[in-house]
Structure formats: C-alpha cells, structure tokens
C-alpha cells in the first residue's frame, strides 16, 4: 500500500513539476495527462473505481485531447516550440502557489473529519448514482450540486455555440445567405 502510494505520489508530483518547467506547451499537456492518471490511481487506492474510470475518461481522454487539439489549431509551430508563452514571473507564482498550498493545508487540518475513513464507502455505482440524485443516505445537498454542475455545462455549451457562431454580415457565408434571401 505504502509502495503504491509512494509511486503514485511521485508520479503525480514529478509530472506536475514537468507541466510547469517544460519549455514546450505540448509537453506540458502530456505531463498533465500523466498527472491525471496518477490521480486516477489514487481513486483506485481509495476504493472508488467509478471515480477512477471517470477521471481517466474525462480528464485523460477528453480534456487533455481537447487542450492539445486547441494548441495545435491556434498556434504556429515556432511559437509552440520556443519559450515565448512561458511566464517569467517566477517569484510571484511561487508566492501564489505556496499561499494556496498553505490555505488548503490549514482547511484540511482544521476541519473535523469525525470517524470518516478513506476507502470505507460503498464501491457500487448504484449507490453513487442514488446519492448524487439525493435518494440515498447521503445529504441531499449532492442533488443540488449535481443540478448546478449540469446547468454549468449547459451554459458552457450555449456559450461555445454563441462564440463560434459567425456574426451576421461578418463572413462570406452570411453575404451569400443575404443574396439568397433577397
């Protein structure tokens, strides 16, 4: 158990470090996918296989691929290769990172976790679904959070359509359309 934890922690930390220091955006994105895989491994260790599968499906299989897709579509190869995008504000970012780390550490240590133990929950997907919809034993706040997340996704989808849609009179297509209409 300790060995597996050490291996996964090392994997997550080293690749997270790689995301920050690599001089190539594509390398950063690939390092990030390795880091996500490590997090999926933590979920497996915590007896939550469904979360691990979702982590791999969404973060490794979809988010990273879309990020890489975006990088390749939007930038010229020269820009991608050199350090033009890398932020040089080392000290400011160090302060921010340490601050967030300290904040999370304080929150985690102050919170009273009661007799909660890691990996003690149900591993069945049925229970997970019931809890998310507020009909299981879990507090009903989960169903509210579930709905909020789906509204957020809907907003994102609508926003993507609005952003990508061509404004009237901007491109060639709309001129053609106007001609057809008249």
């Amino acid at each position, binding site marked *: 158990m300790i060995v597996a934890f050490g291996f996964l922690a090392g994997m997550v930390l080293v690749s997270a470090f790689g995301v920050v220091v690599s001089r*190539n955006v*594509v*390398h950063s994105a*690939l390092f990030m*996918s390795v880091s996500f895989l490590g997090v999926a491994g933590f979920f497996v260790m915590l007896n939550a*296989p*469904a979360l*691990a*599968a*979702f*982590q*791999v*499906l969404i973060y*490794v*299989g*979809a988010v*990273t*691929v*879309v990020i*890489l*897709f975006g990088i*390749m*579509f939007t930038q010229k*190869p020269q820009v991608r290769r050199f350090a033009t995008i890398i932020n040089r504000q080392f000290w400011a970012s160090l302060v921010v990172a340490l601050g967030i780390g300290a904040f999370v550490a304080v929150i985690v240590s102050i919170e009273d976790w009661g007799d909660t133990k890691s990996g003690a929950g149900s*591993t*069945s*997907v*049925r229970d997970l679904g019931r809890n998310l919809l507020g009909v299981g034993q879990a507090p009903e706040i989960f169903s509210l959070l579930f709905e909020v997340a789906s509204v957020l996704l809907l907003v994102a989808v609508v926003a993507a359509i609005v952003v990508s849609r061509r404004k009237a009179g901007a491109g060639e297509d709309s001129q053609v359309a106007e001609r057809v209409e008249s």
Partner: protein
Amino acid sequence: MQSVLSVLDQEPIRFFVSFGVILFLVLNLAAVLTMAERKVAGYIQLRYGPNRVGPRGLLQPLADVFKLFTKENVSPNRADMWIFLAAPIAMFIPAALAWIIIPFSPSAVVADLNVGILFFVGITSIGALGVIMAGYGSRSTFSLLGALRGAAQLISYEVPMILSLLGVVMLTGSLSLVEVVQAQGGGFWNWYFLPQLPMFFVFYIAGLAEVKRVPFDLPEGESEIVGGFMVEYSGMTWALMQAAEFASLALISAMSVTLFLGGWQPPIEALDLGNFNWAWFGLKTALITFTFQWIRWSVPRLRMDQLMNLGWKILVPLCLVWLFVTAGLMLVFPSLGQ
C-alpha cells in the same frame, strides 16, 4: 498437478498469469489479423492473397514479424524523439489493457470489475492521446493533419458510443460485463441486439470509427495524406501501431459480442458446451471481425463533413430517442429490468 493449479488460482498469481495470457493473445491476434485482412481482401477481389509462405500462406504473419523486427527504425530529423517513441506505446497499452474485462467464458475473465463498461470507455479514450502524440511527435505536415483529423473523429464518436452502451446498462442494471452476459442467457431471442437494435447499429458504426477503419479511416487516408499520423513510422514502432489497431479492432468486435450478441451464451440452450463456451464467444467475435473486414473492402471513405454529420446529426439523436423508448418501456413493463 491439482496443487499446482490451486496455487495458480490464488489471487495475485491468477491475475498476473491470466494477464500474461491475455497479452500473448492480443499480440498474436494482431499478427493473425494482418494475414486475415489480406486474405479477406484477396477473396473479395477474386485473387488468392498471400500464398507463398507455408501452406496456403498461413505462415505469412511469421515472415511479417521477422521483417519488422529486422527493419531499421527511421525517424525524422526534427522529430520530438520522446513523444515520437512514446506514441506507439500510448496507443498499444490501452488497446491491450482493455482486454482484461472481456469475459471469455463464465470463469475466464481476468478482472470482473463492477465498473467494467466504464473502464472500457475510459481506457479506450486514451487511444486518442496516442494518435495526437504520433502526429505531433513526427513534426511532419501529413502527420499533423492526420492527428487533427483523428482527434476530432475519436472525440466525436466517443459520444454516440457511450450513449449506445446506456440501453444495455439500463436493462441489466449493472456495469459488470459478466452480469451483462449472464442476463442474456437462454437462447438468442434473449440477446440484447433484438430489443436494442438501433443501439447495436450505433455501437457498431461508432466502433468502426473508433478503430479508424474504412469508411472512417480519415486519420490514415492513404490516398490523400499517405498514412496520416503514422506516415513517419517504420520497423517496430510501426508494427506496434498496427498491433494496436488490430487489437482494438478485435476488442470492438469482442465488446459488441459481449454487450449485444450474448457473449459466451450459445444460440440455443441445447448447444451449451459447459466450460468450452468460450468457443461460442470466439466464433461470434470472429464473425463480427469478418464483417469489419468485409466493410473495409466494399465501402468508400467518407468526407470530413459527412463524418461529422453522421456522428452528431444521426447517431446521437438516434441513441437519445432509443434511450427514451427503452426507459419508457421499462416504466410500463417493470419486468424488463432486472
């Protein structure tokens, strides 16, 4: 003998032994399927196909493997070596790893996960990363074009594929593949391809697109972008990519058999072979694989916009409609769900 077998059946040892067997099977499948592909092509085009090595060309895979092992690995000068070399591995490992959840017979499954179907979609989605890595790492124009096409195609077709699995999950009430197969016992009229025919259709087509085969081989597009993301690969790295392609072809066949065609269940009860029911599984998988190869040599390639239209405007709405139909029927007839 008995004691040796019982030692091998202990948990960690059983897992590693059966995983080794699966890996062996997958690598050999890839070799055999390359030959099957050429033989099927030959017979469909009224010629013999490979027929020089061994009786009726049966030893052709061996010759191919020897050739690929001894071939030099060439890489472009400007290639991003780490990504270039890691890409075939990133394509092969998910294709091989996904096999551990396939139930070959009631007792022959490496890991009967209670999230088997989720594991399948999660692991196969990593393959898209391999395609992008190959295209970017080669630093050549054709590769990059192929990779972009591949990423767009794989991400788009994941949606109908996952939706098409939901009907089966609703009917079974479980994500474990062993339970899915067990729910289909007792004759071929109980297999899920009858009540879920549109879903089977969608899964088959989306699977075809996920393994990047004709008519969805735009990432490869040998007549327009001369091999796409794999144009710069040669020797063993190319062989690994081919192995990944054929392993995922067989994987999609095995998954459609498991989910919709009853897995190891015999077509009628009288043909039950007991412990040898894996023969039914193998037979059905081989048949589905053959239909994939048949399609490859009969259908022309789609254009990019046709591909996207088919995925988003036909397959996804069809899935959603059938999901509602299934849910409605389950509400009216509660005996459908288990």
